[in-house]
């Protein structure tokens, strides 16, 4: 029985069924199928929300091992574990016992730790980009020159100091956005759409199994 349940055909079959339940009623109105699609769309959100502890457990397992073995940098793992547990517990939606989004510890951690840390993590890329632009952005050949020229003109177009000094910078930037950039992205969009359709067809045929990998050999 256990060997039967392990077979890879079961999740592939489930994927195909649930894909068709969403696709068919969109093109062919069949009342029961349409109702089933709507029901599943709502139902699946609960399923997804209940997976919330997967990330927490993964983190605790990885850093818990470091902590246990006293590996190099284990004290940083201790910090990760402590803050994961504290944030998870104080955020539980139990307003009756004072936990949840209104909990003062939760709000403190969100407003004074998560917000500045998250914002700064992404903000730091500005420095790396500036340094990279200085060290690597070279007009080595025709194509690199086009990238350089378009890039610099776009930078000038986005900064009022340039557009006030010489207003045509804005028009040039608008042209670059509306013509070569638009052409590139339109082609990429169409290509991506075809790629998505191909991926969906492969998944429906059971050829695409990448999402099922892991946990040892497939049956």
């Amino acid at each position, binding site marked *: 029985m256990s060997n039967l349940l392990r077979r890879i055909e079961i999740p592939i079959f489930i994927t195909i069924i649930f894909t068709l339940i969403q696709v068919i009623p969109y093109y062919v109105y069949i009342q029961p199928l349409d109702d089933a699609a709507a029901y599943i769309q709502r139902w699946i959100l*609960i399923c997804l929300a209940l997976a919330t502890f997967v990330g927490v457990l993964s*983190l605790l397992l990885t850093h818990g091992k470091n902590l246990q073995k006293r590996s190099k940098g284990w004290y940083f793992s201790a910090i990760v574990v402590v803050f994961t547990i504290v944030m998870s517990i104080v955020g539980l939606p139990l307003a009756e016992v004072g936990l949840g989004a209104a909990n003062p510890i939760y709000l403190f951690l969100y407003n004074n730790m998560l917000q500045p840390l998250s914002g700064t993590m992404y903000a730091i890329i500005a420095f790396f980009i500036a340094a990279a632009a200085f060290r690597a952005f070279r007009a080595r050949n025709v194509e690199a020159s086009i990238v350089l020229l378009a890039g610099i003109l776009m930078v000038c177009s986005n900064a009022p100091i340039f557009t006030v000094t010489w207003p045509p910078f804005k028009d040039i930037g608008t042209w670059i956005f509306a013509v070569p950039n638009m052409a590139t992205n339109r082609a*990429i969009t169409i290509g991506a759409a075809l790629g998505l359709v191909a991926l969906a067809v492969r998944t429906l045929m059971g050829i695409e199994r990448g999402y099922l990998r892991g946990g040892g050999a497939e049956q």
Partner: protein
Amino acid sequence: MVDLLAIWTAVFFTLAIYSILYRDTAWYRIAESVYLGVAVGYGVSVDLLYVRNQWTTGGWSTPGVMLAGFAIAVIMGILWYFRFIKQYFYLYRWPLSIIVGTGIGLALRAVIFVQFRDMIVAQVRLNLWVPTNMLTTFNNILLFIMVPCVLLYFWFTGAKIRETAPMKVVDKIARYTMMAGFGSAFGYTILTRFSMFIGRAQFLLGITPNPPENRTAFIVLALLILGSMIVYDLFFKKKS
């Protein structure tokens, strides 16, 4: 007092991340570890709140199809956690298949229209002769040429047909078009990244609506953190 603690905590963590600009430091590692813990733990609150609301006010507690559906959803939710048990890993694939299948179905049914048909219709509808506006005419002609060239460039990657003379022209047009497009992306990337830095700088300097006390904390903590890194490099790093 709590406000002061809040301000100094936020400023400290901001500067701790920025310490990486000097070099990899313990300050940065501490901040990174805290970020990891808090970010992963944060989602628990909003996800479980949604489930709770659906149970209490969403009708899932109604006996019948709804209650049965909720029970099955909870069981599927529990199956997610079998990914951590190698022996029963196959159970984790079932809710995953449901999610993937539904997601692919929802995306597939509309992508044909939104990202394929509508794009082609818009391309075909380009007006190649606008007598009142020669610039628009010129732009539309360029688009009429550029988009198919870039598409052909992608589609025939690695094919022998790329060696033919017409395709070499197509390749050149496509490459130059894409280079200009990527240059545009670079320009906007600079805007985004520096805008994010400016937002953090406004916070550190206490510019309204940020509390003005931030500036004091910024100056003091910046000197302390920078000083500690320099002192470590001068006196302790050599010895080790």
